[in-house]
């Protein structure tokens, strides 16, 4: 699991949450490091913030998609319909609005993992 978010408390929360559920979690604060990390060690799922200072999550996803077909869940405070639709249409597998329910996030990660297994 790779978490890309510039907000340290969010990274820590997700790392603890998913770590407790048995996932191996890597966290990255800077979008610029993400592509190298993905190339080096392709994760099973990416949790991606949208509002980051260096590059938006939308643009970073386009970059990632050019490199790897990794399932991506947007995790964002941008909760409007237009943003959710845009994120999904751009190629995200799911879109979860912050603040999120811990249990729901875990289940959505598991559901996405299950889709990969069925696919493959």
């Amino acid at each position, binding site marked *: 699991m790779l978490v890309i978010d510039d907000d340290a408390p969010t990274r820590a929360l997700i790392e603890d949450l998913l770590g407790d559920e048995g996932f191996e979690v890597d966290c990255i604060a800077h979008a610029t490091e993400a592509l190298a990390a993905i190339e080096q060690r392709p994760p099973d799922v990416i949790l991606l913030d949208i509002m980051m200072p260096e590059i938006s999550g939308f643009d970073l996803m386009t970059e990632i998609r050019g490199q790897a077909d990794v399932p991506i869940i947007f995790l964002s405070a941008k909760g409007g319909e237009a943003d959710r639709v845009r994120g999904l249409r751009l190629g995200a597998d799911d879109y979860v609005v912050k603040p999120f329910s811990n249990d729901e996030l875990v289940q959505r990660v*598991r559901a996405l993992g299950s889709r990969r297994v069925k696919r493959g």
Partner: protein
Amino acid sequence: MRTRRQLHVLVVDDDAAIRDLLEALLRDEGFVVEAAGDPRSALDAIANRKPDVILLDIMMPEMSGFDLMTEIRRSSDVPIIFLSARSGETDRVLGLRMGADDYVVKPFSGAELVARIYALMRRRGDGAATAPARLRFGPLTVDLGAREVSLNGAVIDTTAKEFDLLALLAASPRRVFSREQLLDRVWGSSSKWQDPSTVTEHVRRLRTKIESDPRNPRFLQTVRGVGYRFEG
């Protein structure tokens, strides 16, 4: 450009008004839609027509959606999206934990529901989900199946190459394509033997057809020194 296979969606809901609404919405998006108002009809449709995805209500009088999903899962791993007025965290978590692929709360956004169906099918590896049959951006619609462009409901006359160019750009909003890439993808050509200004000219002509102000385009934008992108 290849025309995609139509996705077959089964709507299971005891509320006729919701079934009608979903049928209209999804048919308009180019899906084949079947609706079932009770569990028996739903199981029959699944066994005989094998839908690509099921939209499943939870609160139904004869059998709850949770129980019906368990029944469906005995014989099929068809993707299931719960569509329910039960919006509590407990219900959402329970639905996903039981094996649903997604959980959407009523009242829902039609655009988001459609986007979620495509996201689900894309991840399941269904080639039919690579692009929607109709791309809509405010007043502009690009119908990939009918190869038709319309603006505010009025069909625009486009040449085959103009359509292919617009469809390619509109299928990947905000992605920047160089003129060389567009020559390759739309014309099957290369700047070695075809002038990239061909692309420029086609973009110029498309702008006069779809933009209210071609000099200040909303949809077909120039990325200086790089190429073009579609802004949805």
